[in-house]
């Protein structure tokens, strides 16, 4: 059916009457036969639709067809209006056929077959009567097995189309909601979740493509798949909709096989996308668990100490590594610090790290030397280590009375010693083996003499392996070169400087490993607690006696008057505060004061048996009791053997 390109396009009403009319009449007869045979409600609808087609074919104008517009658009709309009733006839016909076959109702099945054949004849007749335009619909085959099911929204202004789709899809097992216009469709998808939308292209109010645009521009709805439903001759519109983001299209009247296949494909695609999203969410959650484990075992703050200050920092990588650090007070004079790096990443590394940290604390708090401690840990970690996990671990003990730092190093990077004057040196080790590799290894130990203001900086390979955009590594020599300038800084500030240097070097490159650092600074030796010792009842008269005895002791040992006076005043102030609170519940009954005297200064220790915590004693340690803090250089508070202990350090000279 072609026409010369230059011939005017005549309105083909007469041809339609001639060619489509007889086919439509045959369809009416056959649908009536079917209605008589089956008698179900659907067959009545089919008969009504067949008559609508017949009327439209016989006299379009009388059937309500609007013949205004260009010949092309009139033909296009006429094709659409002729096909529309067929949607119902074909759709219901297939449904009736399927039910009849299931129920073994041969008579109805045969009648339905005749109807469907007649529908095909009408479709051919329409194409013969009208100028050619669209590609042929796909041939129908046998029904494929049932696909995935989902929640489907059908938006179509034709009640017949809606009914057919709802029937079809419900029968396939889908949950179907139907609406009659574009706005209702948009309201529906924003109000409740759907897996798929079937959107008619031409609807009153808001057209299908406008609804599609609205859905695709909403961040919440963008992922919702949409299948456009259109007449065959709307290929330009279909192409535009695919561009906007429609998943697929279907043309009317529906080919049941295509409908099922396209809906199935859409739902399957959506399901796979969801599986992928769920998986990513699970992985993300697991990473967060690992990060939480990692962060939760880090000590919140360095134990306050008259002779040492410290800080730790860890910046976890996106994919959690296995870094950790710890510091703990072993006894009055000794503080342990540890930094470790577990092999691998993610949850296994985080769990292993938590275990190492627990073992370390349990072992170290027995007071074992660093090397013995690592040997014990290695034995425990090497037994039953099927997965071949291992950890590098540096463990050192600062002894504030001896002024020493004793350490052992199991395969960890050499820490840096930053002297008070800015000189730097490596905290060298004997390159002992990582923990967990071989059972029964031995670990060596070394000792550094520390002077007041010296700092030990322990870090992990995330710091030295941080990379610049060029690929160059930060490197431990660069770290050593910079560290001298950080000599005077408080530990927390020193670590900040280190992180800033690494970040500046990375220039925004994401780091692939955790960045961890611990700095411990020796504030100067404190004397042991020998010399003066006195215990008093919590009574103001007793305080006067204590102060007199303390004065006499300091005088006898020729302590410079100013320093001695300041310390005595600080002790008196703190003891008086304890006595003032002694009347209340949980107040102290006895207060013991010890004083150690050394070349560096004096260390006073005030121990009371009041309930924990003694807020004012704690305040003093926190530096909030400004008066006491102006008198002495440093203070710390601790709860020892069920008593409150406040320590005040006053340097000499």
């Amino acid at each position: 059916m072609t026409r010369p390109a230059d011939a005017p396009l005549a309105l083909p009403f007469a041809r339609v009457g001639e060619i489509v009319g007889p086919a439509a009449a045959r369809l009416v007869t056959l649908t009536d036969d079917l209605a008589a045979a089956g008698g179900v409600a659907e067959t009545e609808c089919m008969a009504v639709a067949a008559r609508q087609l017949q009327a439209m074919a016989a006299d379009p104008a009388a059937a309500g067809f609007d013949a205004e517009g260009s010949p092309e658009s009139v033909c296009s709309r006429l094709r659409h209006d002729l096909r529309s009733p067929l949607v119902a006839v074909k759709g219901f016909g297939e449904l009736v056929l399927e039910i009849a076959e299931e129920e073994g109702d041969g008579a109805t099945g045969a009648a339905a077959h005749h109807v469907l054949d007649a529908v095909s004849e009408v479709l051919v007749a329409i194409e013969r009567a009208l100028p050619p335009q669209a590609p042929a619909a796909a041939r129908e085959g046998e029904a494929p097995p049932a696909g995935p099911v989902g929640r489907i929204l059908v938006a179509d202004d034709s009640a017949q189309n809606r009914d057919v789709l709802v029937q079809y899809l419900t029968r396939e097992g889908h949950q179907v909601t139907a609406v009659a216009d574009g706005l209702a469709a948009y309201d529906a998808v924003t109000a409740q979740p759907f897996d798929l939308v079937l959107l008619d292209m031409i609807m009153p109010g808001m057209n299908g493509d406008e609804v599609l645009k609205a859905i695709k521009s909403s961040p919440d709805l963008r992922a919702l798949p949409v299948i456009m439903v259109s007449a065959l001759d709307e290929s330009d519109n279909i192409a535009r909709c695919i561009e906007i983001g429609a998943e697929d299209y279907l043309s009317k009247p529906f080919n049941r096989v295509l409908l099922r296949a396209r809906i199935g494909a859409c739902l399957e695609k959506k399901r796979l996308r969801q599986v992928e999203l769920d998986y990513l969410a699970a992985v993300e959650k697991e990473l967060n668990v690992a990060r939480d484990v990692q962060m939760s075992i880090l000590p919140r703050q360095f134990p306050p100490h008259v002779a040492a200050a410290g800080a730790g920092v860890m910046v976890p990588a996106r994919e959690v590594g296995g870094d950790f650090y710890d510091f703990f007070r072993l006894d009055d004079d000794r503080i342990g610090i540890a930094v470790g790096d577990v092999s691998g990443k993610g949850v296994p590394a985080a769990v292993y790290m938590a275990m190492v940290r627990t073992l370390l604390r349990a072992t170290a708090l027995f007071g074992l030397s660093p090397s013995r401690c690592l040997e014990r840990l290695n034995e425990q970690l090497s037994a039953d280590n099927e997965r071949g996990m291992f950890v590098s671990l540096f463990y050192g003990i600062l002894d504030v009375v001896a002024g020493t730092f004793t350490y052992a190093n199991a395969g960890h990077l050499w820490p840096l010693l930053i002297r008070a004057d800015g000189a730097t040196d490596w905290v060298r080790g004997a390159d002992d083996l990582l923990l967990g590799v071989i059972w029964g290894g031995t670990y060596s130990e070394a000792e550094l003499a520390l002077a007041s203001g010296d700092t030990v900086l322990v870090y992990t390979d995330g710091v030295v392996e941080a990379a610049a955009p060029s690929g160059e590594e930060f490197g431990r020599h660069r770290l050593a070169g910079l560290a001298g300038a950080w000599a005077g800084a408080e530990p927390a500030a020193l670590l900040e400087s280190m992180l800033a240097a690494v970040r500046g070097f990375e220039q925004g490159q994401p780091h692939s490993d955790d960045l961890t650092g611990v700095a411990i600074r020796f504030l100067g030796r404190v004397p042991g607690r020998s010399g003066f010792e006195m215990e008093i009842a919590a009574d103001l008269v007793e305080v006067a006696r204590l102060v007199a005895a303390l004065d006499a002791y300091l005088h006898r040992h020729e302590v410079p008057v100013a320093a001695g006076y300041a310390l005595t005043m600080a002790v008196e102030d703190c003891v008086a505060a304890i006595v003032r609170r002694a009347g209340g519940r949980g107040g102290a009954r006895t207060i013991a004061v010890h004083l150690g005297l050394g070349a560096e200064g004096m260390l006073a220790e005030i121990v009371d048996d009041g309930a924990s915590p003694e807020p004012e004693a704690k305040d003093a340690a926190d530096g909030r009791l400004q008066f006491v803090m102006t008198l002495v250089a440093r203070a710390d508070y601790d709860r020892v053997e069920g008593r409150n202990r406040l320590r005040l350090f006053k340097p000499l000279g």
Partner: protein
Amino acid sequence: MELQIDRQGRIAVVTVAGRLSSAVADAFDESLQRALDDGAAEVLVDMSHLTFIASTGLRALILAAKRLNPEGGRVHLFGMDEPVRDVFQVSGLMRVFPVYATRAEAEAALG
């Protein structure tokens, strides 16, 4: 990472080049284990073109060494460049793996 494993009699010769990072360490581990599955009694690793090794890469070598140990086999390393040597030095793994400067030395030691 570029990885090649050639079998020379009872020895699996592993050539690993580039960056042995955590991202590729699993593949490295699997290849080593497969070589042992195939019956290699000794492993010889050419590190001449290895620029970086992550802890997970070390783990793969340690696992292979542990698996060979009961039969007296070992994982031999040669050709380490400075940065990689540093890692083995600091981690104490020089004591676990026999390390040679060149392939000739390693082969001489293997007999």
